[in-house]
């Protein structure tokens, strides 16, 4: 029996006249994600159909679909002709390894098909009870599974039991482009994932401090970015050397402002790069009060150096909730690998928790800010993932 995957989307329904734009984007994203595999793709009313794939690719396709924002649910269905015998056989084979209570729900778009929906459900239910008398029981109110029979106008019927919920959200690319600051910690990959989920396509920016951080630390960030990229339809990682800036701050500025100033430089460089890449926002994994650099005073201080919006998807999230998401998207285990992060080497013992903006600006004035940024911007490594 032929197999197909039925893909459903949801929030796009809410869209009015520009619904076509969202649908087109989602279609493109799905096709792009499945590129390289054999399949046919059909757009139906509010649903898409992936068919004619190799059975051995089924798992890969399901895995890929589960990472495409904008898809609400999908089902793996058997496809047969609109013929009661064929439908019955499909239902029986699908329920072969099932047990418990069930109901049959028939949807008959092909009105020429007889018997009608109600009767079809009853017939199929009766047949199931005949064949599997000991393990199946009918319960129309709270069944443990439902057999869906979808009899379509084009002469094909879909039979399936499971509706798998996926990411939901909006198609990537529907909400513009942004630049994610990615560190190698737990939070930033989660922030990136959430941004993709709401439809914003992202680039990633990482600050590397060779020799204070090594190749292993960078590889870790590459791996995290690659995983976030699976939700983004591929991703570009931009690596900027932060060594000189850190050394200059360390040499010339009060120790307690080290992190405050590093953040200000990072955001400034992010804005420059974002403008170059035509990104419309900066995204960070900041969470209010999580560490000294994420108090409202610190955020004020780093926010004040740019005009571009800085999006902070995790700002009001508890750490545990962030960790839960990072486990879900499988970045947690990589994030907790303990390679030295660019922040830890120069970490002062007592960082300023509530930096005073005026004092920060004054302390910073001894540095050649423009020169340092220029130098950092002139040597950016691009890793396409």
């Amino acid at each position: 029996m032929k197999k197909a995957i039925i893909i459903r989307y949801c929030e796009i329904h809410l869209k009015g006249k520009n619904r076509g734009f969202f649908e087109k984007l989602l279609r493109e994203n799905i096709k792009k994600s499945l590129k390289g595999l054999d399949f046919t793709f059909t757009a139906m009313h509010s649903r898409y159909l992936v068919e004619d794939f190799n059975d051995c690719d089924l798992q890969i396709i399901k895995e890929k679909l589960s990472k495409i924002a904008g898809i609400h649910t999908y089902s793996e269905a058997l496809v047969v002709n609109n013929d009661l015998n064929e439908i019955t056989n499909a239902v029986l084979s699908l329920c072969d390894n099932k047990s418990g209570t069930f109901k049959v729900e028939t949807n008959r778009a092909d009105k020429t098909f007889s018997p009608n929906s109600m009767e079809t459900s009853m017939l199929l239910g009766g047949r199931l009870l005949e064949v599997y008398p000991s393990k199946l029981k009918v319960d129309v109110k709270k069944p443990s599974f439902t057999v869906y029979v979808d009899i379509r106008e084009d002469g094909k019927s879909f039979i399936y039991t499971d509706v798998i919920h996926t990411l939901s959200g909006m198609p990537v690319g529907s909400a513009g482009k942004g630049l994610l600051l990615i560190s190698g910690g737990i939070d930033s990959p989660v922030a990136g994932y959430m941004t993709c989920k709401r439809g914003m396509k992202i680039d990633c920016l990482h600050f590397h401090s060779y020799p204070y951080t090594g190749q292993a630390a960078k590889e870790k960030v590459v791996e995290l970015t690659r995983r976030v990229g699976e939700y983004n339809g591929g991703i570009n990682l931009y690596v900027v050397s932060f060594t000189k800036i850190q050394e200059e701050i360390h040499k010339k500025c009060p120790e307690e402002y080290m992190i405050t100033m590093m953040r200000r430089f990072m955001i400034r460089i992010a804005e420059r790069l974002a403008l170059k890449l035509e990104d419309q926002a900066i995204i960070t994994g900041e969470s209010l009060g999580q560490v000294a650099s994420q108090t409202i005073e610190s955020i004020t201080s780093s926010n004040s150096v740019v005009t571009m919006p800085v999006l902070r998807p995790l700002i009001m999230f508890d750490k545990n909730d962030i960790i839960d998401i990072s486990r879900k998207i499988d970045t947690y285990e990589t994030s907790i690998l303990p390679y030295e992060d660019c922040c830890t080497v120069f970490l002062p013992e007592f960082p300023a928790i509530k930096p005073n903006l005026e004092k920060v600006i004054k302390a910073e004035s001894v540095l050649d800010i423009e020169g340092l940024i220029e130098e950092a911007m002139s040597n950016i490594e691009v890793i396409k993932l």
Partner: protein
Amino acid sequence: MIYLDNAATTCPSKNALSFADKYNYEKFFNPSALYLGGIEAAKDINVTRDVILNSLGVFSKDYEVVFTSCGSESDNTAVFCAKKRGVFLTDKGEHSAIYKSYLELKQRGLSTVFIDLNKDGSVNQEKLFDYIKNNKVDFVSIVHVNNETGAVNDINFIAQKIKEIDRSIVFHSDGVQAYGKIPFVLSPYVDMYSVSAHKINGLKGTGALIKKKSLKISPLIYGGGQENGLRSGTENVFGIKVFEYVIKEHFENIKANYSKVSEMNNYVRENVDKEIFHVISSENASPYVLSISAKNLRGEVIMHSLEEYGIIVGNGSACSSKNRFSRVIEACGYKKEILDGVIRLSFSHDTELNDVMFATQCLNVVAKKLKGIMG
């Protein structure tokens, strides 16, 4: 590239690879097979057993060789398979293969004892013998050469002393960093000894446990009953034959290599900037391993900086580089300022003195520069 991390692994010997090449082609047979090819393969790896026993100066009537997949497997076999209950004693300077095995013993409800170290990383013998005199102990494992500081434990002497106190104690030593490097003959007081091929230009995936025939142990891996039933799994014939070749290479020149490496070791000791570096390894440590610390700097940062000059060094033990401080150096009694800055230089007989001189110079330059920025 100047490679000074030979205690982590060494470059496989090309001669050894071509010597053993035929075991991947015309002599690929399974040594357990009963046709001629298999029987010959079995004979051929028996030759390696004799080479190993001979290199340690013991007879095949007293000792046998159990081939394993690595030094860690040999260590695990020793710890878990000789005694099923009782008190297990070791020191705080062991490689993780012993240390973590002991933690596992503890987890399983057995008694474990960890004896303190001297400042150089060797076991404190006074405390060791004291403990054994005053308490019942069943199994002892003491590393031959400490893989982080190079400190050499006189395991023959220790084993003899221990057996004089209680001859029922089983004594094992992890010889991975000593074998083929330190001139040494195994005394009859040592019951088991672990070695590994890739530390002496053999291949990763080949190790051995040398054990007394009279000592009964159970296997760690069950199956087809290879290695006298002590270690199932088809033997890694190619790796074993490579091992044989490099053992011969190393033992023929063991004394010459030792003095050559000592010269390099001494050069670094004498020429590193004493304002910045503290030498952790003692003068009578194995010359193959030299542990130093850049006070108040980070070992990893120095390691990366040296990489830019094409110099590769280790920071602490490669197996445990995921933990910030070295457990072993900490057990030597050092504080944070030293612990943060530990780097390990480890040499091989084919390291060139010129390269070591250049590396020492770079070490001084890099550390001085970093001190200017971080210190």
